[in-house]
């Protein structure tokens, strides 16, 4: 039996495969093609893929259950397109990437994008491995592309080693799961396991190890060690991208993985996941307290945000998925806005906190925009970050996970300290020498585009809620 669904349902993915081919192979094969500007091509294709995603409907199992294309995957894919487009925009204002190699840069981006799209559609362990690897390999390379940072190559290698280790652990866990159940599809695994498996320690070992790969992408404890180094050494646009997109993809894969578990969920599984969540937010936060480099600081802050996002997965129910999906666009706005603002403010790619002293005097508007993003990251009303956290708290309280809620609450307070330290340095401290005034209009407008909706959604979040509801239904 054959069907044409794989082709039609995965139309956007095919488009991106074509794009990667163009950048990688055709550019080499056809002379003269390289004279074309790669960025407009990239953005145009993204726009096309975005349009295709909006046209899709219904839930389809394709490749005989290897992948599922549904409203959930379509919405997450759309997020990836937006983040990639923003990445392309940020690239134009950074001198850390070698722009002569733009064809390669965008080729890597296309593959990375493809990998993340497969992460949101994977419904089978094998597919999950392929997707994670496809998303990881270009990430390793992109991190190593920084011309301005000496440690870039070394960090890239560290990242590779760490990633391979995580993959190895994950594969071992998967083999255990396969040994237990004889199945590889997510839903089959849960069906075979049933409720009895909850009493078996091996069940938790298998699940825990399988999670390793996903946790690695999310940068949650204990697979977070690569994150600060990679974020520090990577070109800033790549850092901004890595802090959002792969994290979202990892979360999506986890949701998919646990999506069908509702029937067999148990205390111990919730407990295991909430320990991961608590450890992630706590370690991320306390490590961030000591950072003096803003890229590293935001790396640790993104680790702690991963912990917060995990709350939505811990509860293992619809409301949790909705809360996660509600938080993601907000997280995207505030994190990308913050990185863009920092990129504009930094002098010679120096992200040491001390070099930002009193910078409000030379660039007041960017600092105000950044302050809005930072307060939002800290979760203060009236900024949208508060509402995102509010929903995560809400689902955890409904589930009765009071310890998790208490730890998350305390972490919000600890987090405030380092976020405010950034603003203190920029606004309260005395300026050492007059800073250069950033004049680039487009990125400034972009900071505003990130910051203003944060206030709007912080006060009226119904549009965002409607949107989150659409991802809730796997259809």
């Amino acid at each position, binding site marked *: 039996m054959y069907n044409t669904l794989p082709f039609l349902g995965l139309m956007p993915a095919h488009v991106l495969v074509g794009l990667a081919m163009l950048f990688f192979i055709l550019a080499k094969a056809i002379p003269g093609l390289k004279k074309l500007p790669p960025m407009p091509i990239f953005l145009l294709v993204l726009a096309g893929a975005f349009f295709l995603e909006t046209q899709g409907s219904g839930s389809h199992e394709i490749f005989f259950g290897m992948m599922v294309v549904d409203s959930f995957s379509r919405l997450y894919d759309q997020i990836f397109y937006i983040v990639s487009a923003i990445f392309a925009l940020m690239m134009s204002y950074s001198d850390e990437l070698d722009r002569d190699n733009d064809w390669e840069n965008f080729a890597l981006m296309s593959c990375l994008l493809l990998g993340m799209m497969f992460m949101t559609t994977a419904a089978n362990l094998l597919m999950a491995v392929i997707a994670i690897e496809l998303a990881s390999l270009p990430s390793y390379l992109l991190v190593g592309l920084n011309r301005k940072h000496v440690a870039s190559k070394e960090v890239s290698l560290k990242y590779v080693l760490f990633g391979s280790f995580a993959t190895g652990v994950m594969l071992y866990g998967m083999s255990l799961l396969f040994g237990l159940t004889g199945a590889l599809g997510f839903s089959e695994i849960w069906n075979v396991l049933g409720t009895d498996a909850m009493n078996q320690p091996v069940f938790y070992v298998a699940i825990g190890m399988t999670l390793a790969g996903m946790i690695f992408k999310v940068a949650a404890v204990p697979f977070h060690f690569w994150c600060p180094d990679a974020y520090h050494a990577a070109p800033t646009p790549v850092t901004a991208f890595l802090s959002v997109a792969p994290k979202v993809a990892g979360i999506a894969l986890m949701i998919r993985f646990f999506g069908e578990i509702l029937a067999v969920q148990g205390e111990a599984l919730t407990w295991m996941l909430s320990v991961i969540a608590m450890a992630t937010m706590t370690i991320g936060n306390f490590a961030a307290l000591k950072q003096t480099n803003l890229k590293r600081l935001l790396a640790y802050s993104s680790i702690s945000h991963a912990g917060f996002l995990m709350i939505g997965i811990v509860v293992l129910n619809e409301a949790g998925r909705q809360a996660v999906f509600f938080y993601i666009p907000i997280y995207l706005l505030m994190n990308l806005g913050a990185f863009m603002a920092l990129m504009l403010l930094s002098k010679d790619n120096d992200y040491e906190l001390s070099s930002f002293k009193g910078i409000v005097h030379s660039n007041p508007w960017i600092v105000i925009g950044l302050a809005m993003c930072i307060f939002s990251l800290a979760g203060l009303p009236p900024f949208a970050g508060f509402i995102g956290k*509010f929903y995560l708290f809400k689902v955890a*309280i409904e589930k009765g996970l009071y310890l998790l809620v208490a730890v998350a609450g*305390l972490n919000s307070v600890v987090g405030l300290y380092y976020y*405010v330290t950034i603003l203190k340095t920029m606004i309260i401290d005395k300026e050492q020498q007059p800073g250069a005034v950033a004049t680039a209009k487009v990125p400034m407008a972009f900071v505003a585009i990130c910051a203003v909706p944060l206030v709007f959604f912080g*006060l009226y979040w119904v549009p965002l809620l409607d949107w989150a509801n659409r991802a809730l239904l796997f259809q």
Partner: protein
Amino acid sequence: MSHILSWVVFLPLLAIPILFAIPREKGKWVALVFTVADLIIGLPVVMGFDRTLVGVSDPNGMQFAEKFSWIPSLGVEYNIGVDGVSITMILLTLIIGVLAVLASWKVETFTRGYWSMFLLLQTAMLGVFVSLDLILFFIFWEIMLFPMYFLIGIWGGPRRVYAAIKFFLYTLLGGIGMLLCFIAMWYYAPGERTWDMIEMVQRVAAGGHFDGPMIFGVEFSKMIFVVLFIGFAIKVPIFPFHTWLPDAHVEAPTAISVILAGVLLKMGTYGFIRINFTMFPDAFIWFRDVLVILAVINIVYGALCALAQTDLKKMIAYSSVSHMGFILLGIAAATPQGINGAMLQMFNHGTITAMLFLLVGVVYDRAHHRQINGFGGLASVTPVYAALTSVAFMAAIGLPGLSGFISELLVLSGSFQVYQTATIISGLGIILGAGYMLWAYQRVFFGKVNEKYQSMADVNVVELASLLPLLVIIVYLGIFPNHLIVFFEASMNHVSELLLR
């Protein structure tokens, strides 16, 4: 129905775009015009307030109410209104707002930033007092934090950064606890889920219970009660959560100290009455002894600390801790007298302490220090200033004929009916209060004239304009306290019934 209450709350916000449209040095005039206008449009609310309506647990008794659906799927509403508990606080906020503008007349650095933060703060404070929806309340409550952080952190004294972050972290800690409690209260609300405070109090009054599970082995309502209490107690501040207050006060610019002492601290006690105690009357009775003990500690410990201070502003900050203890004592006693006294004390402390901080600001502007021992004989140099200060100090001590006396008397006579020993010990606070106030007065104003300040200028017109209204209020309420009490008497008596049921 006109949206007069919304106008009162959001009018200061409307001034912010104007600030950026006009020259920097005109900012103070914009702020003055808008705060005065806010006071003027607030007057119909105060004058038109029906004093016989009880409110508190009666949704129909809320006046100037406005209610719109805001986030339908969550049931969050834009729900505002006033009753006896909030009306005096709104009046106080509006008055202090105008006076604080006058007190910051000399701010010259980053004026646009200063005034926009100031006006945002004003809106947030008014918002807290009118909100009847828990989420709305919380949003206003937290919006207050970051303007306050910048106001202390940028325009404050030498240790401003430390003081500002301490204030920020402390209040956020309480705030997060509150938020978690609010969510739990919504989820386990008696009857249908709601964020409406008045509705909740009504259901509790009708015998409803928050039917939640045990949290960490403690009964649901007790756990929520304690966490909420800590959240509000940090703001009041109640011992042992008071350590941020002296730091914040000492480092904050005069006007911000005035707002902090005059209005911000009252939010904590307002929260006690509006949310914490009335929604959990059973837990309140269970925790009542602890509340009284904390109140007594606040009164006596605050007074002892004040006695030991050498910095005038720090002394007043600790006297604030002491006087806020009386409010908690009155509410914890929960007798009609005690609780009415507590409410009156909230208003009186707001005016008296605001005046004290304004007076310290006057001398600090001239001498650039606040050491009590660094002056001497100022009474002969600046007679008007000395006279004004004497009235404010006497009011703080609780001299009969001035407003502080009435409220403290009410609180003490109210609490004596229930907690004799505690009341007697609290009396010690008043004696100590007389001690530190008079001692400080003597050191600053009497004795040998300090050579350095022989030609110190007396209060100027702007300062006088900020001080005189408070002086009038303090004297007037000392003689006719009932003119204010009638506003909240019906509501507060009802609160007393709810608590002692």
